[in-house]
């Protein structure tokens, strides 16, 4: 019914040092969906994300993207310390030969950073730096937004605020989001679909649809339906890890 934004067919990745980072994986992500990849460190979720971005080439298999316009958000804000917030956000436009900053200003506004265009990264809090990073990733109106544990280093309060804002932006703009996290709660709160991965070698062990209302307010995190879904994902994550441990 809906278009496929990203399709992976038997994609595997081995690193030159012999580590099998990702075993042959098939994955199809629908246009406009919010998908989270959850798993312990070393399960290949960041590798999978970088394969989708084209930052890594697969050892075997093929990756198809419906649209090449994408944004990438790293775990650190990854801002240029010598450039202002506005200049950082405008970077993708500049690299594309653009000189007009109006969409960069607009992207900053969208992330609630109206008054901070001229601020340098060191003058901003961790949460605000991450907002600049998201503004930069979305300034080119991408169809696909790839996020690699973007909120892992933030305090819980800031993380909840950013979760809320990210969900609202996604609903408004209809991006396809692939979101890597090691937090089950974060994955369930944000996503329509949670993919559980396990390590050695990395691969998908569960693919779960999250049946929760689209409208998710802050107190929703305390509701039974939310906690039940989290428990469900946790169980599958633990089962996968336990199976790994007994095999090893």
């Amino acid at each position, binding site marked *: 019914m809906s278009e496929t934004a990203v399709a992976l067919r038997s994609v595997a990745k081995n690193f030159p040092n012999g580590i099998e980072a990702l075993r042959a994986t098939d994955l199809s992500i629908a246009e406009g969906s919010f998908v989270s990849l959850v798993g312990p460190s070393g399960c290949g979720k960041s590798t999978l994300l970088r394969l989708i*971005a*084209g*930052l890594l080439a697969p050892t075997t298999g093929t990756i198809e993207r419906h649209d090449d316009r*994408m944004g*990438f958000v*790293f775990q*650190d804000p*990854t801002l*240029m*310390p*010598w*450039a202002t917030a506005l200049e950082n956000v405008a*970077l*993708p436009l*500049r*690299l*594309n030969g653009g000189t007009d900053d109006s969409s960069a200003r607009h992207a900053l506004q969208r992330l609630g950073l109206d008054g901070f265009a001229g601020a*340098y*990264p*060191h003058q901003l809090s961790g949460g605000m730096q991450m907002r600049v990073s998201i503004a930069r990733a979305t300034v080119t109106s991408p169809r696909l937004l790839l996020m690699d544990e973007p909120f892992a280093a933030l305090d819980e309060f800031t993380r909840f605020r950013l979760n809320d804002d990210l969900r609202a932006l996604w609903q408004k703009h209809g991006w396809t989001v692939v979101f890597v996290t090691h937090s089950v709660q974060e994955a369930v709160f944000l996503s329509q679909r949670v993919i559980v991965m396990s390590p050695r070698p990395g691969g998908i062990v569960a693919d779960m649809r999250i049946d929760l209302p689209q409208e998710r307010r802050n107190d929703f995190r305390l509701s039974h339906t939310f906690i039940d879904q989290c428990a469900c994902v946790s169980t599958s994550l633990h089962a996968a890890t336990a199976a790994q441990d007994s095999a090893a």
Partner: protein
Amino acid sequence: MRAAGKVILPFLFGALLLIIWEVAIRLNHIPQFILPAPSAIAISLWKDGPDLLRNLSVTVEVTLVALLLATITGVAIAVALAQWPLAERTFFPYAVFIQVTPIVTIAPFIIIWVENIFVVLLILAWMAAVFPIISNTLLGLKSASANLRELFRLYRASRWQTLRRLLIPTALPYFLGGLRISGGLALIGTVVAEMVAGTSGAQSGLASRLLEASYRLELPRAMACFVLLSATGLILYWALKVLSHRLLRHWHESARGIEN
């Protein structure tokens, strides 16, 4: 109070040393051609001032031109080496060779090959100054964050865009650190070159005057040259430090602390 102490304490210490020096010379009747008193050096500075300053201007001119050339060539070489790893492996050992060779040992050859004394001094001062700029800038060009590099790749930045917008800004603090070292080395290189080149010519630089005065046992004059050269080194260091601070104050850790 603390700011005042920063200036006053070293000043008082220096003044104390000078007084002890002066008194010791007078009490022990040490002759001027062994060790002149500070007052004798001051008198010489005043009396020979115009002549010494004319010679100093030659030294300063060589130093600054050599530093400028070292900056231009050093940065160009570092950029080339950073862009082509094969070039780095091929040529970097020769940069090290220039660095570790004492310029005094090369000076006689340069003097034979090159007729113009100004050019001789320039070549030797350049050789003394260029290495810190090459090696620091090269280190800086390679220090860009891995994630930012990936970001540039993701947006298909050209080699030139990556250089201009990522590598050069990253390298700037490293380059400025190298420049500060090279400033001092350029002056040292110029002085050594002048001494090796000898005392020929009326205005061949202050180091030549220093050497000439010491041959004639005019130690107050020789020491006046020494004082002027040290002051030049200090001013050069301070100027490069201010330049570095101006360029980095908006964002770099090294410059942010100084403001408050």
